[in-house]
């Protein structure tokens, strides 16, 4: 049965992704690109951009939203649940086990060094995410302005991401209105 096979693949793909997504949703983007856009060809890079925009602008973890979205797109409601389940099972399992072994985990030197390395790897992945997504946006004065002002507001003025997202949406509306695209 095609559908069942797809659901199984969806599940295992997200288990794989969920196991290696350290450091949040942005670090997941290169993994999605590699496993889902390039390998499975379930979505195109352009679509990933839109999925990212929506997933960021709605409540909930970025990574969960992305998984739910892709699952839904592929296989409807069942897909969304299966993909989300796949994504969270690794962390659920690991945390459940660790809660009892907390002290040992904290003190284990190999684990600590390993995590130290992984954190640096995560930085590289997030930089990659930015490079991929940057190539997907139109480059014009407006977009450069939004990117720059958004960045400055968040990093230097500590404005919350939510507010910046709302402002960006509003700016988009105003910009298109003045361009005459909104009648």
């Amino acid at each position: 049965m095609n559908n069942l096979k797809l659901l199984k693949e969806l599940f295992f793909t997200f288990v794989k992704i969920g196991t290696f997504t350290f450091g949040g949703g942005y670090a997941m983007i290169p993994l999605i690109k590699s496993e889902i856009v390039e390998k499975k060809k379930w979505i195109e890079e352009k679509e990933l951009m839109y999925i990212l925009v929506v997933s960021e602008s709605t409540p909930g973890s970025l990574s969960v939203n992305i998984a739910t979205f892709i699952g839904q797109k592929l296989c409807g409601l069942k897909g969304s649940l299966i993909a989300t389940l796949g994504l969270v099972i690794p962390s659920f399992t690991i945390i459940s086990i660790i809660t009892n072994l907390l002290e040992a985990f904290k003190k284990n030197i190999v684990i600590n060094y390993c995590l130290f390395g992984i954190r640096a790897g995560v930085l590289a992945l997030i930089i990659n995410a930015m490079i991929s997504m940057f190539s997907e946006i139109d480059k014009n004065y407006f977009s450069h302005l939004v990117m720059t002002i958004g960045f400055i507001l968040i990093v230097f003025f500590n404005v919350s991401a939510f507010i910046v997202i709302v402002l960006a949406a509003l700016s988009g509306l105003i910009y298109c209105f003045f361009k005459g695209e909104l009648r």
Partner: protein
Amino acid sequence: MKILLELFLSFIKIGCFSFGGGYAMIALVSEEVVKKEWISGEQLIDFLAISESTPGPFTVNASTYIGKLLAGYPGAITATIAALLPSIVIICLIAKNFEGFLTNKYINSAFTGLKPVVIALIGSAIVEVGKNVLFPDIIVNETTYLSLTIAVISLLLSKKLNPIIVIGLSGLMGIAFGFVFF
């Protein structure tokens, strides 16, 4: 039983209000669990350290940890489902009607602004993570240089290699450098 209901309600609240990822969510969760006096300050610090170190979304790590602490596996499952529910509902609604969503001229206009802001958000994540990775002790020290080396090597490797392998290799580099230099 009562604790399960409380967990469920708290995490639904967290699920509805965590926007923008990362540190905002951490603040939200911390506030809620400290307010409810579910864990001590020290347990919170332990947990924050762990959730930076385990894969997976922070909110899920939090719901699993706190749920388990308070009510074992039933607690962990209840809290996690609660945390995921709001986003699943909202995303499914949007994804289902995505075609219509994308052709709506207002949504499209909003996207003109929202797409570039994604770059701003990723940029800010790079700054945050960069600060923590390169300057965990605030000053520039050997940790800075070693982290920077691993980050640069990972960045170069990621041009050719699958990101999962890059993560694995960065972990190995961490172990190797750690034993050699620390």
